[in-house]
């Protein structure tokens, strides 16, 4: 019986994507510009610094591709190696390869520079899809829900987003809905203090949905612009905990049907192919509106997010590039794809 289970699904996401328009309006940029401009280092620089630390880097490997008089298959294998090592995953890599293969085989692409540019373009194009303005100007206030598995950087990201928004003149509030992990409430509390953002907390072990409920009421009363809700880390396979998230969402919706306006899944860029499962399950439970990639200041490239973005049609909103509250940047497909291919 279950023999028949494992037949592959034949949905062609790539086809779907081709059809979608390439509408890109990055409202994040305009909302957040005052802060990003004041930074000494641009996203591009930081990413580049982070991404290029890896030995050789993508480009160094790619440059070698055409140098050895290798056959087409070898060249494509070389590219496969590069993409897989960036955690793009086998299937996504295959799809990208399928797109450049004809160009290589028919000599339309003859040198590595052109090949890199083509790949970069493909990646950038895909990653530019599905970007709509962030819903952070809602009335009476916007609600942002932050979710993800344990340790990916949810709390830090909550603080970072709070900082960005505050710098654009928005009055923020945090809700500490991780009532489970030891020290979690205090952790967000410290960020709140540093940023001068009020934090709504519950007692340890309190139902997180009730904390969210309280926060909704307080935000209303105190004329807040954006309420940011930090949640406990949970594995996507933990059914009860996933349902707890659903409950938090329902409680918020009861209070304000259009909320949460933004629901972000935070992904650690060191994560391999499991991130795909994470994204699917969280999306199924919450209907995410976007992704945040953290720890891009490390050596990991977070390539898995490319396939996720493509499969689920979700924009990547922000990237985390360090542990300070200023270490957050709006995601920019061009910088990202460029940095991904940047040489040391």
């Amino acid at each position, binding site marked *: 019986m279950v023999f028949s289970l494992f037949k592959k699904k034949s949905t062609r996401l790539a086809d779907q994507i081709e059809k979608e328009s390439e509408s890109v309006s990055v409202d994040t940029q305009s909302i957040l510009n005052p802060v990003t401009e004041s930074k000494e280092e641009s996203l591009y620089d930081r990413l580049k610094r982070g991404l290029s630390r890896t030995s050789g880097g993508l480009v160094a490997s790619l440059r070698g591709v055409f140098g050895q008089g290798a056959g087409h298959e070898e060249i494509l294998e070389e590219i496969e*190696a590069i993409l897989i090592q960036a955690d793009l995953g086998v299937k996504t890599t295959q799809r990208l390869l399928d797109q450049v293969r004809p160009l290589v085989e028919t000599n339309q692409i003859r040198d590595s520079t052109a090949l890199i540019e083509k790949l970069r373009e493909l990646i950038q194009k895909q990653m530019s899809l599905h970007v709509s303005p962030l819903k952070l100007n809602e009335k009476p206030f916007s609600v942002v829900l932050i979710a993800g598995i344990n340790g990916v950087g949810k709390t830090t990201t909550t603080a970072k987003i709070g900082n960005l928004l505050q710098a654009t003149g928005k009055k923020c509030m945090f809700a500490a809905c991780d009532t489970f992990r030891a020290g979690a409430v205090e952790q967000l509390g*410290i960020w709140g203090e540093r940023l001068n953002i009020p934090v709504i907390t519950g007692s340890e072990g309190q139902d997180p949905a009730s904390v969210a409920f309280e926060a909704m009421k307080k935000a209303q009363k105190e004329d807040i612009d954006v309420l940011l809700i930090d949640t406990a880390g949970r594995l996507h396979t933990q059914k009860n905990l996933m349902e707890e998230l659903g409950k938090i969402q329902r409680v918020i919706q009861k209070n304000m049907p259009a909320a949460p306006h933004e629901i972000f899944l935070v992904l650690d860029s060191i994560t391999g192919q499991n991130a795909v499962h994470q994204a699917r399950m969280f999306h199924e439970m919450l209907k995410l509106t976007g992704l945040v990639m953290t720890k891009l200041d490390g050596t990991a490239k977070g390539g898995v997010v490319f396939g996720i973005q493509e499969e689920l049609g979700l924009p990547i909103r922000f990237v985390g590039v360090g542990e300070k509250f200023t270490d957050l940047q709006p995601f920019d497909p061009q910088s990202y794809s460029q940095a991904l291919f940047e040489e040391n």
Partner: protein
Amino acid sequence: MMFGGLSEKLQTAVSKMSGQSSLTEENIKDALRDVRLALLEADVNFLLVKEVVEQIRQKAVGVALEKGVQPAQKLFSLVHEQLVELLGGEQPTPFQLSSGRQHKILMVGLQGSGKTTTAGKLARYFKDLKPTLVAADIYRPAAISQLATVAKQAGADFYQAGQKDPVEIAREGLAKAKESNSRLVILDTAGRLQIDEDLMNELIRVKAAFEPDHILMVLDSMTGQEAIKVAQAFDEKLNITGVILSKADGDARGGAALSVSKVTKKPILFLGIGEKLDGLELFSAQRVASRILGMGDVVGLVEKASEVMDESTAKKMQRKMGSGEFNLEDFLEQMQMIKKMGPMGDLLKMIPGVGQMIGEEQLGGVEQEMKRTVAIISSMTPHERQDPSILNGSRKRRVAQGSGTNAQQINHLLRQFEQMKQAMKQMKKAGFFKPANLLKGKLPFGM
């Protein structure tokens, strides 16, 4: 069958090649490609995959096939063996600490990898040693109070000295532990990137002051291709003594484990399972190898299974499956147990890779097929369940009527059951079918 991932693929890759007497370059070529893909999907490092596949190829070519064993199954068991070996062998000596003297453990790893929780789990695991947890994560907000709570939960002593230099904290923690006659001191440090020179140097200084007996790197099971670089860097700088894989209760295939074993040659000691402090299990190479291969060795599944099936039932089932005695009665029993475990879709999603391969519609189909199967077998007499070959036309009509199905559906079921039995036999012959090891004897295999 429960085997998702690779074994299923291998079945199709080489099913055309029955009747061969040994493994050859030719008859394993496709299967090896599948092995490669499976390993890559499991996040085994690309370069390592190359190496492993080559090792397997060399081992495999020329291996004789016992009668009735298919090349794919033989190859599969070879792959499994190889992974077990790479992961440090079948029976790792469990990590122990003698009670006669003081032990010092330094916890290291990337941000968010699970060091603090794991430190608490170790304290709990070795609570007879009267452990002391020392807080040297001076960077992350509330890290210290997190450890304080964890220490309390673990019943361990706790030392903190605020935000001062971790080197001093380490020294003071040791002194404090000596005073209180604590025989295990666990130093929790801040997470850091392996490329952060300042922080890596800080760890080197801490190590010099603390003089740990064990330097344990905590690595997230979900880590991707970079695992190899991370492990290498921590090992080069600190000469780690062992690894703990955290968050292993998820559905990550855990290929990072291979990378780490390979580059550091250090043992993986424990698996971190869940957020509670009792969630620390001795590492089993068997289990992790199965998981990397996508064989569905998922702790959650095992747990669920164990809720509805006791040890002796499980053993009985395994014996039957191995011996070919497995009949429709047993199959029915298993189906009913599986049903008790919850909706099929939820179960299947727990198996690495499966959620990816099947869609909701298909899941619904499975649920239905299961219902139908149960209905059909329930409508059979005990005698028919023991020996379905006696099901002639009129008997089938009766069963069809009783179960609201038709002869075609009954034949379909019988054919699949026969295939399943064949598969079980071959697994057994291939020397691979050791569910007791693979799944701690609790997983109902007949799915």
